[in-house]
């Protein structure tokens, strides 16, 4: 047995990739999470579900922002899972000053906080606003566009789990075609969410010509940290859209959150890219391209696609969307082993 183990080719996923801490690589390339000195914006004990992608994404994003600002950070939160699972009074997970006002106004509230800091000559205090995809792409969209258009000094982070999870998994404008939600049930002639709908908020953000837009994923935490750090070094309106799987809403295993997030990018459905002033400045190439089936199959919200020929046709259509992303962001270009 021990001989077999010795012969087995062990793959250290913590090395050369972007998983927790990168503890096996040299100091300079480790993630902040590997440091004993790391900041802690959201402390443990909150009430997120097991395997919550949003909790992970928010902790990494805000820890990085805290580090980048040397703790001079104020967070504004839209109503949603993140707000609910981190706070019910008198408990709070937030180690930063934190304000929740309403579902649809986090960008505007953040603009107000930034204005107050500016007028008080405390520009070193930076502002991060955050919300889920519903709070961002739907109900908060007007305020977000306004904040972008004014180029207010706010980093807005959207934690995208592709539906209204806090209210019980209803469709949002970030829900992908075919996905089953409580309001797009997997029944009828076109089960799940329909094709030809939804909006791509990173591209819309870019259309505002704001200084920085990026997509990120909880499967690439080092990349996520790098993007948040970069965003915090810039003044003006910035937008980061983070892909955060939701085991509850997607019908996936809690321990598969990172794997599913990785598959979403590796299949091309969730491209990781950056843009400055409306122009794409870079993308993270796909390292091991996978067909969309591999991403779809572990999620119950797509289970109906695997039942018949019609489902296969719709999978093919999703594959075409993934391929279009790959082409658009040049995700299969030749690169060195480690892009960072």
């Amino acid at each position, binding site marked *: 047995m021990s001989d077999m183990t010795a012969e087995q080719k062990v793959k250290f996923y913590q090395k050369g990739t972007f998983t927790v801490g990168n503890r096996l690589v040299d100091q300079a390339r480790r993630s902040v999470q590997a440091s004993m000195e790391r900041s802690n914006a959201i402390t443990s004990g909150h009430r997120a579900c097991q395997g919550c992608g949003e909790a992970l994404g928010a902790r990494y994003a805000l820890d990085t922002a805290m580090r980048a600002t040397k703790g001079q950070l104020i967070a504004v939160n839209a109503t949603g899972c993140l707000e609910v699972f981190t706070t019910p009074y008198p408990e709070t997970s937030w180690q930063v*000053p*934190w304000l929740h006002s309403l579902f649809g106004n986090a960008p505007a509230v953040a603009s*107000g906080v930034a204005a107050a800091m500016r*007028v008080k000559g405390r520009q070193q205090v930076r502002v991060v606003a955050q919300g889920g995809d519903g709070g961002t792409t739907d109900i908060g969209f007007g305020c977000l566009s*306004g904040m972008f258009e004014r180029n207010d000094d706010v980093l807005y982070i959207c934690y995208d789990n592709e539906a209204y999870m806090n209210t019980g998994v209803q469709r949002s404008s970030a829900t992908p075609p075919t996905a089953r939600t409580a309001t797009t049930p997997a029944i009828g002639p076109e089960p799940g969410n329909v094709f030809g709908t939804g909006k791509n908020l990173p591209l819309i953000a870019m259309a505002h010509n704001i200084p920085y837009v990026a997509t990120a994923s909880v499967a690439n935490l080092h990349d996520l940290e790098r993007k948040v750090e970069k965003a915090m070094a810039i003044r003006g309106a910035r937008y980061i859209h983070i892909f955060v799987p939701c085991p509850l809403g997607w019908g996936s295993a809690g321990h598969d959150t990172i794997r599913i997030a990785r598959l979403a990018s590796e299949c091309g459905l969730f491209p990781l890219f950056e843009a400055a002033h409306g122009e794409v400045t870079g993308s993270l190439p796909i390292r091991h391209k996978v067909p969309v089936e591999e991403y779809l199959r572990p999620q119950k919200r797509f289970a109906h696609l695997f039942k018949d020929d019609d489902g296969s046709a719709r999978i093919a259509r999703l594959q075409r969307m993934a391929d279009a992303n790959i082409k658009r962001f040049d995700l299969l270009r030749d690169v060195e082993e480690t892009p960072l």
Partner: protein
Amino acid sequence: MLKQIEGSRAVAEAVGLCRPEVICAYPISPQTHIVEGCAELIRAGTIQHCEFINVESEFAALSVAIGASAAGARTYTATASQGLLFMAEAVYNAAGLGLPIVMTIGNRAIGAPINIWNDHSDSMALRDAGWIQLHAETNQEAADLHIQAFKLAERLSTPVMVCMDGFILTHAYERIAMPDQAQVDAFLPSYQPRQVLDPADPYSIGAMVGPEAFMEVRYLAHDKLLQALSVIPEIQQEFKEIFGRESGGLFHRYRLEDAETVVVTMGSLAGTVKDMVDERRADGVRIGVITLCSYRPFPLDALRRALQGAAKVIVLEKSLALGFGGVLATDVRMALHGVDTLVHTVIAGLGGRPITRKSLARLFGRVERGELKDPHFLDLDLDLVRREIDNQRNQITAGPIAENILRDIGPRATKVG
């Protein structure tokens, strides 16, 4: 300093004297001249250390104000009508968070049918949101109330709406005694927030409260407004000591001595009513006026005492609770609960319908003769209304009421008197 000045401009200048730090606004008639004035005063450097933010909606305007106020900035915005309703969710939120934002309402009707003229439907719709609501009778008072409003808001850590009649006050030029900076500085201390977003002392503000404490939190918000019943007169007195004039308070009394009939009203209408009262008094009629300044909190006890000697009360209001009747009248009846006083509800001036001396004379005459039915709609064209009721009854596809009414009226100018 006396100035011949538009009401909106006076408000903008008065707000400027309060050393605001963040002003955000979305334009809506009849509030526009106020925020244009603020923008200009900031650009010109007259108001210093202040950010002016042009936002994309009223919902954003108050949301920006919420963020700025929670971060410790003295914050101001203004709106009206549809704008106030569009920000309704944030109106409740600002009060719930205890943020001392001051907001002007240029009172205007609510559609449909869309109507830009004055009545009190807008602020009435948000009367229970937890804001203090002060109504200005004149432009002098509108300017003065803003200065008082910041002090009141910050002393109680609660937001204040200063309501002024759209166009009638906002666009009227009057002679106004504009306060100077030294007076305002002496009156209004710098803003010390009760809670503030500060990395050195991080609070979580706006978290969830469940059934175990929500009642108590709500009760405390109610109690805070009741505290305002004593703070408003205190601030009125402090204002008088520095500026030398009466402005604000719970309500104004006019010729109440020995009055058998008292008209209770709110806002600019009081001017016309006072003129009429002078006329009736000259004819020997014992009539007086109470002009409410503080609508929320509503001064139940003080009003009850003030109305003690009256046999008849005429509540003259620019608001209507559809399917119910008077709004202000209901509150006044509450103040007179258990007292044998006849209270008349008179709905007047909706959507900017002029309230003329002639109409008021007719009204008072009918009250004196005991002919008034309750509620009374001042200058309502009953024949016109009845024709349209018949029309609607007779054909299901009768079409839009507003269009039918206007077709029926024909090419006639706005009905006056």
